[in-house]
């Protein structure tokens, strides 16, 4: 079967995390993965992003299927249940809002910029080589550290479930996927 350009989108997350390793401000590029699925769902009424353009989904497919790093078992049923999916969405959005709050505190001068990544919303990892103070306003950098942490954490979770189950198991509870499917249901009347 002839390959399409979208088949190579697995390169995108690798580029994204590599850029963020050297300069954390590149983390802002990840907003594309947040905004584009919503635009396509709200205005197009489809999940075209998940189906065609999601770099992370393509990466899991590439690693899991092509490089055979994945198990072949389907994920446990609870993982794709509505309770878990919407529960994870609420948890993820709460953490996102908390990250915005931290950014706001830094913007207002109530808190100093912290040059660390927070993996799994718990473990602090120093990341100070990726940013020189003064390159950008502190809040811009704080958002970068927070957003990059979130992107890295979700990718790590995706890699773990990819290894345990099928390649795109992350997609069963991906907050963006849940959100866009919910939007499509509302928009297309189900």
């Amino acid at each position, binding site marked *: 079967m002839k390959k399409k350009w979208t088949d190579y989108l697995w390169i995108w997350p690798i580029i994204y995390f590599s850029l963020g390793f050297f300069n954390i401000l590149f983390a802002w590029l990840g907003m594309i993965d947040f905004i584009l699925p919503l635009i396509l769902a709200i205005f197009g009424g489809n999940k*075209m992003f998940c189906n065609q353009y999601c770099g992370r989904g393509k990466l899991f497919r590439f690693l899991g299927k092509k490089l055979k790093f994945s198990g072949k078992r*389907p*994920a446990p049923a609870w993982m794709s249940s509505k309770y878990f999916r919407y529960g994870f969405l609420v948890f993820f959005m709460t953490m996102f809002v908390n990250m915005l709050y931290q950014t706001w505190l830094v913007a207002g001068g109530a808190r100093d910029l912290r040059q660390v990544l927070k993996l799994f919303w718990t473990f602090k990892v120093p990341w100070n080589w990726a940013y020189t103070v003064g390159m950008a306003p502190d809040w811009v950098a704080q958002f970068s550290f927070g957003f990059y942490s979130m992107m890295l954490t979700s990718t790590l979770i995706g890699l773990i479930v990819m290894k345990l189950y099928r390649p*795109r198991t992350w997609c*069963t509870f991906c907050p963006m996927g849940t959100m866009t*499917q919910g*939007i499509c249901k509302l928009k297309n009347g189900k």
Partner: protein
Amino acid sequence: MAKKKAFVNADVCVACGECVNECPRGAVHIRKGIAAEVDQNLCVGCGLCAGSCPAGSIAVMEV
């Protein structure tokens, strides 16, 4: 020998589109961003879609 076809449980499907990528006959599509749908006229019941579905929402059954 009985024919086999793929069937999607729309309540479980997360519409990720993995089955669409997998189907060699182009028999699967995502309907309105909600769930996968199988064109039974094109489906040959090979089970590739079922084997790739992360949510386990596709079953191949005899018809």
